[in-house]
């Protein structure tokens, strides 16, 4: 139990037709916490994030986020206050939308219908692009970016949204190691600077940021175990989680030190 949880999920069940993606998951997250969520593919990690931003439909159970019950009516309001970065995706290189315009999309939800972005908001977009290190690419078509650059732009988009919760769904999957390190550093910098409650999903143990305060291990739609990095990131625990001998790499071990 945590005091004044910003996220509270009780007995959540989510199913996609016959597949039950989440089975009675309960979770509380406090303001400003940085949580790593790991587990094999199909463990329900992404579904857990969709429950938090109101896109996942609960078959059973309840969820409260930012003081609001998560339901169809509150979903849009909730998403305006929640930043979401997904895995890198293939974008049509001919898409006629620039990096700067893509980042501005983060503001559109909060801005509301019938309102145009102001000059101050465009200046803020430029500032955030500078923070994430892609200011020099701002006029480039979004489809022309590399995987790492695209993810930096995606983080910039989430930042201009001024989110109270930051959901990162395998943000460094499918990108090269150097870009992975840059993005992990960026994510940690943002957390230190803004203290945004952050949930970081990954299936790759080596990509958990050292700033992680709690690790949730998921398996078969359930929270299998959770606790400090020291108590969860141990070889015997991880081998059981993944069902195969799993060694803790040096970089992951640093989380426990």
């Amino acid at each position, binding site marked *: 139990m945590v005091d004044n949880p910003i996220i509270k999920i009780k007995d959540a069940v989510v199913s996609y037709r016959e597949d039950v993606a989440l089975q009675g998951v309960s979770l509380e997250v406090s303001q400003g916490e940085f949580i790593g969520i790991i587990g094999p593919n199909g463990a329900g990690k992404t579904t857990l994030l969709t429950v938090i931003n109101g*896109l996942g439909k609960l078959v059973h159970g309840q969820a409260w986020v930012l003081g609001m019950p998560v339901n169809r009516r509150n979903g849009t309001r909730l998403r305006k206050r929640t930043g979401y970065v997904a895995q890198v995706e293939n974008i049509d290189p*001919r898409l006629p*939308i620039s990096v700067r315009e893509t980042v501005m*999309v983060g503001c559109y*939800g909060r801005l509301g219908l019938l309102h145009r972005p102001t000059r101050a908001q465009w200046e803020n977009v430029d500032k955030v692009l500078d923070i994430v290190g892609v200011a020099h690419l701002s006029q480039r078509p979004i489809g022309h970016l590399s995987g790492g650059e695209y993810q930096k732009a995606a983080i910039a988009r989430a930042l201009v949204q001024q989110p109270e919760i930051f959901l990162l769904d395998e943000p460094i999957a499918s990108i090269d190691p150097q870009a992975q390190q840059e993005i992990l550093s960026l994510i940690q910098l943002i957390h230190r600077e803004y203290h945004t409650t952050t949930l970081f999903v990954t299936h790759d143990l080596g990509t958990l940021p050292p700033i992680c305060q709690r690790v949730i291990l998921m398996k078969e739609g359930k929270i299998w175990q959770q606790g400090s990095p020291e108590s969860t990131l141990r070889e015997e625990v991880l081998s059981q989680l993944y069902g195969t001998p799993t060694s803790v790499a040096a970089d992951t071990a640093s989380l426990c030190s």
Partner: protein
Amino acid sequence: MNLSILQYQFMQNAILAGLCGGITCSVVGVFVVTMHLSFIGVCIAHAAFAGALLGLWLGFNPLVGALLFSLTSAGIIGPMADRGELNPDTSIGIIFSLMLGLAFFFLGLMPGSRTEALNLFWGSILTVTQQDLIFLAVVTAIIVGLVVIFYKEIQAVICHRDIALAVGIPATIVFYGLLFSTGVTITASLRSIGGLLIYCLILNPAAAAYQLTYSLKRMLLIAVAFGVISCWAGLAASYFLDVPSGASIVITSSIIFGLATAFSPKRKVKGWQQIQLAG
């Protein structure tokens, strides 16, 4: 060149229909092309055509039938594709073939001469009535107005529908709105361009503009220019060469697309991608 023809009402109507049809089809086409919805659009076009033929067969206004069928098909295809019950291509293919089957079914049941039905196949911009023109102008004003008002939401959905949804934009409503706009546009342009050809006017100018710019606003303007030029050039060809107007419009827009593709600066991008893949 004798331009006295311009003083006749039918020619003035045709020019205005070309202007409105060119604008509205191209604007809708930009969304169809950028969101890769070409097959959905073809399906809606055939649904409109089937609905119009039902109207002709049962004796009510064919445009009412076209509107009903196109909006219904858009309302069925969208959720089917979203829910993933079937592969989107499969579900759209089924609706498409059903609509084509219904069109020929209604055509077969129609008694007497089928001249009006055949006009709906090919369209005739030179015989557009005042009533058709008003309907087309109203639809054009509404579509352009909606695009101006909801430009940022539309741009976000084009960029990435799931991300638009994740930042709190009503992306699903915007997406269905675009599908319905396609249905209404096709209905309004049915008499002038024709059920079998209308889709080319939606696709070609937008696809040509897609080859030429990386700015969505510029793409909309270029597509509109190409659409109106296609309509007016096709109209002129139809009048001076005595050839079917709908076909002339489509051929003109196809030539524009061919030229835009040949001189597209984006071809370099394709080459660059191939190098990257090979590397």
